[in-house]
């Protein structure tokens, strides 16, 4: 139990909660009960982000459709046509693959991951006025930053389904399997986001690092290409890339959409490293969160 934890879930009328205030140092554990009591705050902060995002933009929800489609068009033009990634996709799958669907199937989870990580990183600094003035479990803030990216993801997902229908593909497997994979993506994004959000408070340098990091991460993730395209001599690189928490879920996402076999080893590798990220992220977050109000 965390030392300043409120020791009960009951309302004050029945059992008085008791708060112990004292210096803490070193590693402390997560207070799950307290986090649970603040679940409504988590929801309200997420809702706030979503509302503010769509209230301020004139085109509102339309952006969630325009952005990924434009991105896709650019990728199709440059990588699909000019650099021949479209043909490569056909060769690897030994069948005719619709490259726009191939792309969007990977882009949708990737964008969800990337924007969650970015908004988690900025969340603590962005809500610094709350952190300096009110007490609540700090974990609520980065967790709630999933809200707006999630809404964008749902919209992009519907667009993806629409595109599949347009090309006459079956959407049934996608409807069943993709929500499960979306959970894997969410966990990966939160694990990475937690760690980076806490690091951003401690060291502001990370604010400058994150855009670059996300960009590098994009190229380490099979969005434009598929890992199956890598030949024998790239085996060492393949092993390394499979440790990327996003590699497995994205390959699986695409496999489901295109009706190809899922690379289970890759998926398990990624889930393993996701778990590692979550553990490290949580541990570091809990270690430094008590300093947030002083340094944020």
């Amino acid at each position, binding site marked *: 139990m965390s030392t300043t934890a409120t020791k009960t879930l009951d309302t004050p009328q029945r059992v008085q909660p008791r708060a112990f205030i004292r210096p803490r140092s070193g590693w402390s554990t997560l207070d799950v009960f307290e986090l649970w009591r603040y679940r409504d705050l988590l929801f*309200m902060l997420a809702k706030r982000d979503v509302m503010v995002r769509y209230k301020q933009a004139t085109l509102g929800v339309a952006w969630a459709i325009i952005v990924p489609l434009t991105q896709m068009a650019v990728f199709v033009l440059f990588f699909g046509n000019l650099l021949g990634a479209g043909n490569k996709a056909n060769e690897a799958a030994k069948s005719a693959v619709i490259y726009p669907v191939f792309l969007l199937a990977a882009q949708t989870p990737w964008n969800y991951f990337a924007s969650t990580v970015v908004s988690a990183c900025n969340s603590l600094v962005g809500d610094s006025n709350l952190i300096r003035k009110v007490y609540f479990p700090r974990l609520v803030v980065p967790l709630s930053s999933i809200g707006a990216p999630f809404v964008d993801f749902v919209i992009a997902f519907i667009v993806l389904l629409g595109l599949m229908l347009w090309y006459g593909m079956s959407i049934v497997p996608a409807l069943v399997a993709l929500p499960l994979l979306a959970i894997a993506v969410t966990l990966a994004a939160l694990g990475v986001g937690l760690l980076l959000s806490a690091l951003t408070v401690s060291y502001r340098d990370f604010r400058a690092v994150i855009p670059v990091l996300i960009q590098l991460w994009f190229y380490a993730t099979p969005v434009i290409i598929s890992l199956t395209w890598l030949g024998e001599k790239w085996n060492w690189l393949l092993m390394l890339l499979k440790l990327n928490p996003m590699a497995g879920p994205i390959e699986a996402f695409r496999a489901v959409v295109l009706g190809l076999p899922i690379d289970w080893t890759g998926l398990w590798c990624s889930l393993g490293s996701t778990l590692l990220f979550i553990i490290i992220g949580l541990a570091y977050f809990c270690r430094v969160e008590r300093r947030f109000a002083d340094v944020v």
Partner: protein
Amino acid sequence: MDSIISAQGLSKRYRLGASATNDRTLREVIVDKTRSWFGSDAPANGNGADKRFFWALRDVSFDIQRGDVVGIIGKNGAGKSTLLKLLSRITDPTQGRAEIVGRVGSLLEVGTGFHPELTGRENIFLNGTLMGMSRREVATKFDAIVEFAEVERFLDTPVKRYSSGMYVRLAFAVAAHLEPDVLIVDEVLAVGDMAFQRKCLGKVQDVATHGNTVLFVSHNMGAVTSLCTRAILLERGSVVLDGTVNEVVDRYMTGTANQAQTPGRITYQPLPADDRDGQVLAMTSLDHAGRACENTLFTDGFSVELEYVLHRRVPDLEVSIDVFDRNGAKVFYSSTRRPPTGDTFEPGRYRSRVRIPGKFLIPNHYWISAAMLVPNVRFVDQRERAVSVQIVDNGSDLHRFAGTDVGSVWVDLEWGTTRE
């Protein structure tokens, strides 16, 4: 015993310099670590003489019983806000410990947790959950909150279109309906119109009579005296006096009257920027030639100059002075009225000067307080009785009444007299 808050030796140390204001860069950390490896320049731990740290709170102990209404008073930088931060668990103490029984609700700064783009309704839920209520709880208290805040008609309007008064009312209403066991009120009642202030004080009193505990921080000694039964006086981070409210307020008022360092000028230590949007750095009374002085001639008048810093943009900021006579009665108030920084409110250092004309204040002794405030919303900074001015008679014609009370303001009025 029925002790609801017990604090033992609470202390809080902050780092000064760049890291206290904000950024701690990797470079700094690497430099620090390298230094400590080589054993030189390592920061001395717990050493009070270390210039890199300062103690905002030092060895504060007290016990508060259920139903107590306790005023926490002290000058700016005395550690009041730090104490509240520790008690509301926003930050951990460096040393010492405290135990609180029951739910703590803080009514800290107006508008914390309000999002300008969201409507009043949405903000009530956001703010309520932020204070630790569940959505269901907020829903059941929703009507009471709206009624108390008097914002029924504007519930679906974004709060950025609210008047400052409405903003304050809504913020107070949400916190007041949290029904905490311990209510922490920081300086909020100093704002809002009179009617609403009375309503808020009534609500605080209500909380107290229901057997709950109130911690009340204010510069408004009137409010402290009327609300609290007990008070704690803090000075430079330590408890100087803990006793009945009258005893402590008396001590505070006499204490603040003697703080000028050089005649006519007082400077204040800059406090950490993360805690405040700005602060007064210095206040000077100047004679007609622009010299700092404590004495000025009746016919010359004098000027008051305020030096202050803005750390963040504060819309609608005004800078003001209050002039008190030697009995503590306010003679007049004057403010920049328009934002002192023109149309922009950018952070930076500023200097404002106001001239008090000659042949205006009756020769006597006066105290001047300064404030940076957003009218009806909040005080950014307040400095009580900072400088004093002695107005020396040089022909007001009032020496004829020496020793008698002729009021504070000299007016040259036309009299007409006829013989009946």
